[in-house]
């Protein structure tokens, strides 16, 4: 397998968007191609992450539609669905296609259009990312599943409501610096703590945003990357793992086995240790999810993840800033786009182009993309060009 590098990234602003699902995808793709200095006809394979086009806007089979709108021609187009990790899976398939030598130029995108549905309809569509037969049918939504998880984590590990709430405060402070974020404003600790309950102990500000948006990435072999971009970013690891979605099937609901496995595999591929990571984009679909991922990836001991935001290690300026983009919490969470948008953020950071939220001297970044209640996880580690 040969090395793979990122030579172009593109994104649409996240939020309530007028454009169609397909148009959003095509805008991000064209932005990424322009960044890479490639013409659409140079792309040899296209991988698209999308969770629920059919359920949200009545459109399936969108990979060739986005490809057509981007002008890619007859290239193989493949849609990947892994719930909220759909984008991470698309990224991994693109990396494998280039690493294997099958293609030299791959385009990856992720897209979702969610805001045209009513909130309870959206909750039901998202609930189908869990095990419908034993969870959604009983009335569990995703906030409810993470409410159950948060309650158990607090019980077993002494994690406090305040620690959980601090994740929202931190990620909104970061998202305020991201011009593409859905909600570019601060929230205070009392606002988070006293917000309308959604599924206790989680309230409105513990939940990620329902957003429209798309992101895209262009990949090529590492050995030729510098001919296409002055600051190519190398893919040091691309890992994926799975688990059963149902909470009732998990021995311990305060940890996600798929994250542990994908994380271990990624660090092994990259030959790096946790201390080598300068920043991370972590799947904060709920505040609690960021804390658990920090523990599952080995950045904090079990039960200690809540310290990250409270003590400042994961804030901009801290030892390893987490979710400089604002995360799913503030940047927004157009489900299929999220995993690719994480790669977009890390690429900007590793090129030194992240503006007001730049992590000085960032050389290694990690992206963690979780599907549903932990049934799918993709972890990528990226490195700046020396």
């Amino acid at each position, binding site marked *: 397998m040969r090395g793979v590098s990122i030579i172009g990234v593109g994104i649409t602003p996240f939020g309530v968007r007028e454009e169609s699902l397909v148009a959003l995808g095509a805008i991000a793709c064209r932005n990424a191609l322009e960044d890479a200095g490639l013409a659409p006809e140079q792309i040899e394979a296209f991988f698209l992450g999308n969770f629920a086009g059919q359920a949200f806007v009545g459109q399936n089979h969108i990979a060739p539609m986005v490809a057509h709108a981007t002008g890619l021609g007859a290239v193989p187009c493949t849609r990947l669905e892994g719930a909220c990790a759909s984008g991470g899976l698309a990224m991994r398939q693109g990396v494998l296609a280039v690493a294997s030598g099958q293609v030299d130029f791959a385009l990856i995108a992720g897209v979702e259009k969610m805001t045209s549905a009513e909130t309870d309809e959206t*909750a039901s569509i998202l609930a189908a990312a869990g095990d419908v037969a034993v969870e959604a049918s009983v*009335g569990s*939504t995703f906030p409810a599943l993470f409410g*159950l998880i948060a*309650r158990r984590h607090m019980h077993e590990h002494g994690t406090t409501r305040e620690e959980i709430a601090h994740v929202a405060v931190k990620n909104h402070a970061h998202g305020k610096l991201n011009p593409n974020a859905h909600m570019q404003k601060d929230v205070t600790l009392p606002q988070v703590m006293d917000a309308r*309950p*959604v599924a206790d102990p989680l309230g409105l500000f513990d939940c990620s945003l329902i957003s429209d948006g798309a992101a895209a990435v262009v990949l090529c072999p590492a050995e030729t990357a510098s001919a296409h971009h002055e600051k190519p970013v190398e893919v040091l690891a691309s890992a994926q793992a799975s688990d059963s979605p149902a909470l*009732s099937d998990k021995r311990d609901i305060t940890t996600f086995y798929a994250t542990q496995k994908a994380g271990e595999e990624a660090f092994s591929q990259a030959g790096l240790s946790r201390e080598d990571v300068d920043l991370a984009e972590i799947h904060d679909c709920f505040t609690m999810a960021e804390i658990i991922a920090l523990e599952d990836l080995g950045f904090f001991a079990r039960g200690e993840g809540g310290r990250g935001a409270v003590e400042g290690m994961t804030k901009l300026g801290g030892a390893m800033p987490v979710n400089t983009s604002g995360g799913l919490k503030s940047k927004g969470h157009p489900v299929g786009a999220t995993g690719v948008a994480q790669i977009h953020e890390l690429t900007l950071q590793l090129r030194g182009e992240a503006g007001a939220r730049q992590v000085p001297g960032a050389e290694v970044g990690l992206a963690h993309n979780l599907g549903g209640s932990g049934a799918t996880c993709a972890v990528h580690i990226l490195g700046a060009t020396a």
Partner: protein
Amino acid sequence: METFVCAGCGRIYLEKSERCVHCGSDMEERPASGRGIVYSFSSVHMGAQGMPTPYLLVLVELEEGGRILARLADDDESEPSIGGKVIFSGLSDTGPVFRML
């Protein structure tokens, strides 16, 4: 309380089916006391489509082993707690229902 346990993956069902929908293995009938403890719980205020809120979800650990997601009975006003004892009270449109003991 009657339960059906998958011989392959150990998943517990409250309704009989030929094979486990999860892994396809054979099912075994297993009587259960209906008693269990609360492993976790959440009061849902913004719910799924067509489900009136609030309602209480409980992840119950059965005395005989295994966990199931259930509702706490609507008219049960006791405050749930992790480790609190519950008993199966029947099946509703939304699946299993338990009461605090």
